[in-house]
């Protein structure tokens, strides 16, 4: 929204200056031609034309234009222009970004609430901002919202709002909208009862639900959603909500094909969380039902916590290891993740990962993207890996320090060798040595 606005002001200078000229009746090439044909002035442009132009303008520019004449002002309030709105709620003490003006918020609630369909709230790290978002939400009673996003841009500030306030605001939308299709409520205190309300009112329309890190939801709560929302195609949640039952529910005959499943694996008490395992048969059921599903797993665990994972074949497609991951674990990935498409490893110990990578290249035939941060691979091992994958590696993001020169290749040679196998220019990523 904000970005858009800046762009428009800069990119539409041509337009606004023309507009200014008209207003001031200064003679110009355009003005003079209009003067000859007085019937065709800007004010008499048909609604649909003005509307079309307005669709290209930011809200601020539309608001300015709306004060030009009655007709433009009418167009300003056409519902089409109020389908989507992004509320930005920031406090000057905690954010550099501006907020949506309170008057505008009031105007939207009064005049355009019933037009809103795609609504998001961006809040900064301040609790007041999240509370303000909840206050707006509770006033959206006459709406038919389809998409709702609650986005914390810095800290998860919705978590600081009292749970009852948050839940009652959210259920207002759940109850009133009745045709919600996409909901993004990561890092919020949403709970099982509110999900029940969601299901009761929107089970036919719900397609996307993102609720990573929502600690008040239980496995039973999410299971209720999966059981009844058969159109659900995308789901994001934390590992502790993932169960065999959930996967089976998502694989039932009545259910559409799942397209995207994101699972965040986070330990609440580092080093002490014991993670359950998911049965191989449950995964298999999911893949039988939705052969093309993307299964994205984000891991933020200590090395020793990886024990229960990837002991058996797991149909994961995208893997992200946000903290150190052991060599052994990466070895298991090569063995048990045949659907792997993308792999990102932030850090690993100091032992080179040659064997593990080569095994992954060998067994993960769909692998197209890999990123390595604080890891080590010998140059020869890396070249071997790239050679085996070849041109299918569309993303190859490797820090320069990852590659250890050996007898076969130094750093210059590796660039040309890897580029050759990829069929395009490739360089390792570098940080400034300043």
């Amino acid at each position, binding site marked *: 929204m904000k970005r858009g606005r800046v762009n428009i002001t800069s990119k539409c200078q041509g337009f606004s200056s023309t507009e200014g000229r008209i207003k001031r009746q200064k003679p110009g090439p355009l003005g003079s031609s209009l003067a000859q044909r007085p019937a065709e002035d800007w004010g008499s442009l048909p609604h649909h034309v003005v509307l079309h132009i307005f669709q*290209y303008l930011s809200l601020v520019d539309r608001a300015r234009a709306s004060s030009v004449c009655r007709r433009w002002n009418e167009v300003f309030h056409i519902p089409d222009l109020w389908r989507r709105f992004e509320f930005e709620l920031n406090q000057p003490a905690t954010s550099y970004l501006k907020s949506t003006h309170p008057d505008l918020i009031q105007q939207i609630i009064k005049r355009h609430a019933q037009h809103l369909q795609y609504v*998001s709230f961006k809040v900064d790290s301040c609790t007041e901002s999240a509370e303000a978002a909840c206050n707006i939400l509770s006033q959206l009673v006459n709406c038919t919202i389809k*998409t709702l996003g609650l986005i914390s841009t810095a800290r998860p500030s919705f978590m600081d709002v009292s749970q009852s306030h948050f839940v009652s605001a959210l259920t207002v939308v759940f109850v009133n909208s009745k045709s919600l299709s996409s909901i993004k409520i990561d890092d919020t205190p949403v709970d099982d009862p509110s999900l029940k309300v969601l299901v009761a009112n929107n089970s036919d329309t719900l397609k996307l639900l993102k609720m990573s890190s929502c600690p008040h939801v239980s496995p039973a709560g999410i299971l209720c959603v999966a059981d009844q929302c058969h159109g659900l195609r995308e789901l994001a949640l934390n590992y502790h909500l993932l169960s065999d039952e959930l996967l089976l529910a998502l694989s039932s005959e009545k259910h559409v094909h799942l397209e*995207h499943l994101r699972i965040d694996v986070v330990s609440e008490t580092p080093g002490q969380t014991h993670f359950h395992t998911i049965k191989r048969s449950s995964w298999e059921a999911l893949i039988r039902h939705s052969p093309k599903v993307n299964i994205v797993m984000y891991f933020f665990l200590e090395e020793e916590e990886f024990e229960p994972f990837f002991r058996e074949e797991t149909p994961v497609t995208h893997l992200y290891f946000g903290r150190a991951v052991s060599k052994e674990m990466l070895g298991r990935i090569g063995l048990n993740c045949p659907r792997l498409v993308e792999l990102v490893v932030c850090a690993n110990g100091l032992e080179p990962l040659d064997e593990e990578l080569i095994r992954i290249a060998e067994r993960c035939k769909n692998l*197209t993207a890999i*990123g390595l941060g604080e890891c080590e691979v010998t140059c020869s091992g890396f070249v071997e890996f790239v050679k085996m994958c070849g041109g299918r590696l569309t993303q190859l993001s490797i820090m320069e320090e990852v590659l250890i020169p050996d007898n076969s290749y130094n750093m210059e040679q590796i660039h040309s060798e890897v580029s050759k196998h990829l069929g395009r*220019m490739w360089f390792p990523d570098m*940080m*400034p040595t300043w």
Partner: protein
Amino acid sequence: MAVNSIHWFRKGLRLHDNPALLEAVQGADTLRCVYFLDPWFAGASSVGVNRWRFLLQCLEDLDSSLRKLNSRLFVIRGQPANIFPRLFKEWKISRLTFECDSEPFGKERDAAIKKLASEAGVEVIVKTSHTLYNLDKIIELNGGQPPLTYKRFQTLVSNMDPPDPPLEPLSKVLMNGCTTPVFHNHQEKYGVPLLEELGFETEGLCPVVWPGGETEALTRIEKQFGKDSASALQEIFERPKLNFSLLLASPLGLSPYLRFGCLSCRLFYARLTQLYNKVKKNANYDKLLWREFFYTAATNNPRFDKMEGNPICIRIPWDKNPEALAKWAEAKTGFPWIDAIMTQLRQEGWIHHLARHAVACFLTRGDLWISWEEGMKVFEELLLDADWSMNAGSWMCHSCSSFFQQFFHCYCPVGFGRRIDPNGDFIRRYLPVLRDFPAKYIYDPWNAPEAVQLAAKCIVGVDYPKPIVNHAEASRLNIERMRQIYQQLSRYRGLSLLATVPSSHGEDVNVNGLRRLAVPVSGKRRRGKGHGSRRDHRSGEEHAGPSGVKHHSTGFGDAQSRLSRLGNGGSGKRGRESEQESGDDSRLSASGLKVQWHSKETNAVQRDERMTMSS
């Protein structure tokens, strides 16, 4: 008529390889070397005491070298624009020389002085010697815009003539009868001031680790390259062993000397070239070229040190958090690794580049989610080698705000240090309070059992702060935020963790959604016709299915490769329909590159829906 010259020192605090200084004495009768210093301003400036001490030592050294040539340095109290006109008159000046300053504010200041000089009938000679290359030439070669990746930059300079060899130092022979009128009251009027005179408290100041001055710089380069050049060879060709001593100030370190121009970058370059020729190895000038890269990126961008209004900087919704910032700056984060580095920085004025990565990542995208501009200001105060361009550029890099860094990887404030220095000697050195902690807990003392804390005579929460943040949680959230930002900027789908912001020349990489302020609109952008002016009217307008993905590559080396990488991401990993609703989706076009304009066919509803979710 007599030729009376002033050479104006700013950076370039040296007599060797100083082309502007040689111009000053060329056929001149008198030479006066001046340095402007505003004592009333000094105490209030953002520059810390270590940097002032270094500067004053540089000036002392210059003065003593000039004395050997029967000359002196004139340290003038005040602002150049106020004082130059008087000096021109008083000293009957006919020529003013100085080294070219490529930074936007320097250019502005110099333009004003040039104007004053021409009004006074003074000839002005400016020479480039703080950088290896003429930066305008690099920009010209790149089609009028500075390159935005280091690789692109390397490619450009590899096609240019090598930098000029260093010039001889100023000597009595070169002075050739040119004299400096010096009066008995020179010391009190023009002498190098003491720190106290600038209003600094000198009690409790740590001993000098980096002595300022040209003489020291030349000693260091001699040590590195002299005789068998063993140390240089080791420095350059050996993969640095990650250990404790790597983190300490090296007696061979050169970066502060390059910053103040006590050492000529061309001399350093020439010594490297000699060495490479001798050992018959491929030349690698990375250390010097990074510096050059940032100077080039900044030279026409007066908002290079800001997020807002800076066309190459991604807008990230950083948190304002003065308390957390202060804890970081004052080494009170409760993470020994971070605090030890910040202590070293404050005491000595220099930290290793890996340490810079660590603390910069911690402050910004890794843990505290505080704006890189704040970190940059702290470095500007404390870091001896902090240069406007380099400092801002590196901070943008570390915070993944520009220059296309991997953002999926955050340095762990516990694990990263432990890898480098498992025993924690670095921490023990700079944080004596933790000295008695066993190595097992020295990076995360809050995890130590009470008995261990008691035995170490350091209770976490009493004698040493508790950690300011839960790193696992903070980094998880921050990675997600970065991912959301990057996926909006790039075409790459999938996890989006590997997404890079496209750098395409011609196609503007206008990540900030602003018209380039400093760089004139190039012809290439216009060539896009229509879409250039339409692209951002509404974000998310590109809506064609994967097959509709179009790229406007203008065919420059790495830019193209990045484009193709990004382009490949669009080849239908996921069905089109799901993308429209997916928050994981990256099709929100907020900037450069992927401009698709299918307004007529676009179903506004779907477009809106997607836009709302993918953020």
